[in-house]
């Protein structure tokens, strides 16, 4: 009886794991099945490197370069905000804060991760964007800068909590050795502890990158949505995700425009897949090395 129960338990967990993998494969097959036929009609270089996205115009054109540039610009902008904030709070929590303060600060920062992205979007659109417009005397507050700030705050918990794990995992004798050699606390943190946790920190940044480039709601609401290469941080941009979200609902199923949106999805999938592989490698290195 006991053996039977044990076996049953194993089968159930095995089935759960199998189901997860099967749904991943199903999603991949679905996206590629609908997106790949697109490249039979529009060449890959034209799709990737030309800059004119008019999918419903009488003379359709599918140049996604401005959308790719939009995604990268918003994501890099978000990282420029999230890395200093996230890494700073991780160092504070892991190295400087007293244990009581740590108990409070860590969950509070992680609370940021629990706010739904549509709430961030609303906040950005109704509150931050008008302020940004006034502060910098702009024509419009819906732009790369505003989107980067909101998205940056959104991914702070990812960078901070994973970096903090990495910092906390650095063995105590490294700190003690450094202090014993006469290094100050700041020198110990930046020359001994942070380098030792390097791969974990890089991994956290890559995960933050993956999260930011895939985020849809915030950029749809706050980035403005002009399909062009941004010339300044106050230009509005249209990332890949918001293009898919905005155009999927009303398009004719299975026509070229529909397929082009799945082609964008393949592109996004490829970007996040590579990022996840890289961060997996970074974390893996830490575990083994």
């Amino acid at each position: 009886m006991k053996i039977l129960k044990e076996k049953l338990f194993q089968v159930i967990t095995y089935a759960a794991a199998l189901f997860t993998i099967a749904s991943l494969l199903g999603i991949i097959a679905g996206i590629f099945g609908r997106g790949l036929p697109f490249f039979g009609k529009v060449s890959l270089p034209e799709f990737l490197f030309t800059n004119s996205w008019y999918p419903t115009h009488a003379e359709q054109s599918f140049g996604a370069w401005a959308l790719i540039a939009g995604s990268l610009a918003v994501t890099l902008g978000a990282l420029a905000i999230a890395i200093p904030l996230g890494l700073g709070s991780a160092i504070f929590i892991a190295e400087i804060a007293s244990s009581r303060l740590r108990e409070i600060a860590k969950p509070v920062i992680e609370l940021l991760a629990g706010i739904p992205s549509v709430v961030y979007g609303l906040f950005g659109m109704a509150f931050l964007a008008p302020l940004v417009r006034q502060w910098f005397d702009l024509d419009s507050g819906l732009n790369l800068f505003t989107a980067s700030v909101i998205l940056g705050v959104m991914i702070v918990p990812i960078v901070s909590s994973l970096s903090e794990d990495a910092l906390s995992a650095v063995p105590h004798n490294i700190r003690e050795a450094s202090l014993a050699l006469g290094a100050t606390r700041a020198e110990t943190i930046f020359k001994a502890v942070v380098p030792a946790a390097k791969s974990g920190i890089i991994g956290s940044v890559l995960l933050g990158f993956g999260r930011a480039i895939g985020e849809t709601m915030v950029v749809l609401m706050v980035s403005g949505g002009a399909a062009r290469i941004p010339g300044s941080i106050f230009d509005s941009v249209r990332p890949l995700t918001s293009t898919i979200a905005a155009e999927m609902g009303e398009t004719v199923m299975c026509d070229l425009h529909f397929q082009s949106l799945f082609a964008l999805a393949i592109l996004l999938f490829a970007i996040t897949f590579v990022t996840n592989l890289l961060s997996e490698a970074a974390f893996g290195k830490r575990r083994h090395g």
Partner: protein
Amino acid sequence: MKKVILTTILLTLLALPALAKGNRLTCSGSTTVLPIAQATAEAFMNANPELDISIRGGGSGVGIAALMNGTVDIACSSRTMKAKEITQAKSKGLNPTPYAIALDGIAIVINSANPVKNLTLKQIRDIYTGKIKNWSEIGGNKAPIVVISRDVASGTFEVFNEKALAGAKVVSTAQLLASNNAIATTVGNTPGAIGYIGLGYLTSSIKSVSVEGISPNSASVKDGSYPLARKLFMYTNGKAAGAANRYIAFIQSAAGQKIVQEQGFITLN
């Protein structure tokens, strides 16, 4: 005991669709039509408690595709079916039938602090294609125009594209927002902005301009003098029958059209 409860729940879940099928009506489609569909469905279900109408958004394209796949009974659409969709339906042996349920005007909106009162269709076209860049060129203050458009797949864009742009390409610096509400909010807090939204979404922080001297209101939309107007539709496979027929007839009736008006749209006649 636990097992009994679990089995009961599972069985109920399994049996639910079978029980409900007879008096169940499902609609999906255009987000513009959504408020009309929801409000009329509520009123119609109050009068006919045995009926269960479920309404979902998703967009006109999604609704029409769902109708052709047989997953819904009614597709809501803010545009007529496109040639490609009709071909798809024909190839499946289906014959989707449109029922007009309301009229909608598309208002050109600007910030309420903007003194401009009237625009010609040519001026609107020049603004959206990037030829006119400053409000001073068309009698306004010296301030750059912030052009705001809808996502190119929306029904609202389609009508605007056909009637105001005449197929010209929207300038790539134009901002793109995904809903009527988003445009209303943004125009409301951006002094130099211009956008276009369904008449039902006008708020106090924005104002509509007249087009070719005709202001958008129910009279000018009904008699066809206001140039940026459209019909809203519900599609059924073949002629509407049974509950679907009764529901659509209700929307077209005086009581239904009163709800249409309450939702900020314009009645059929």
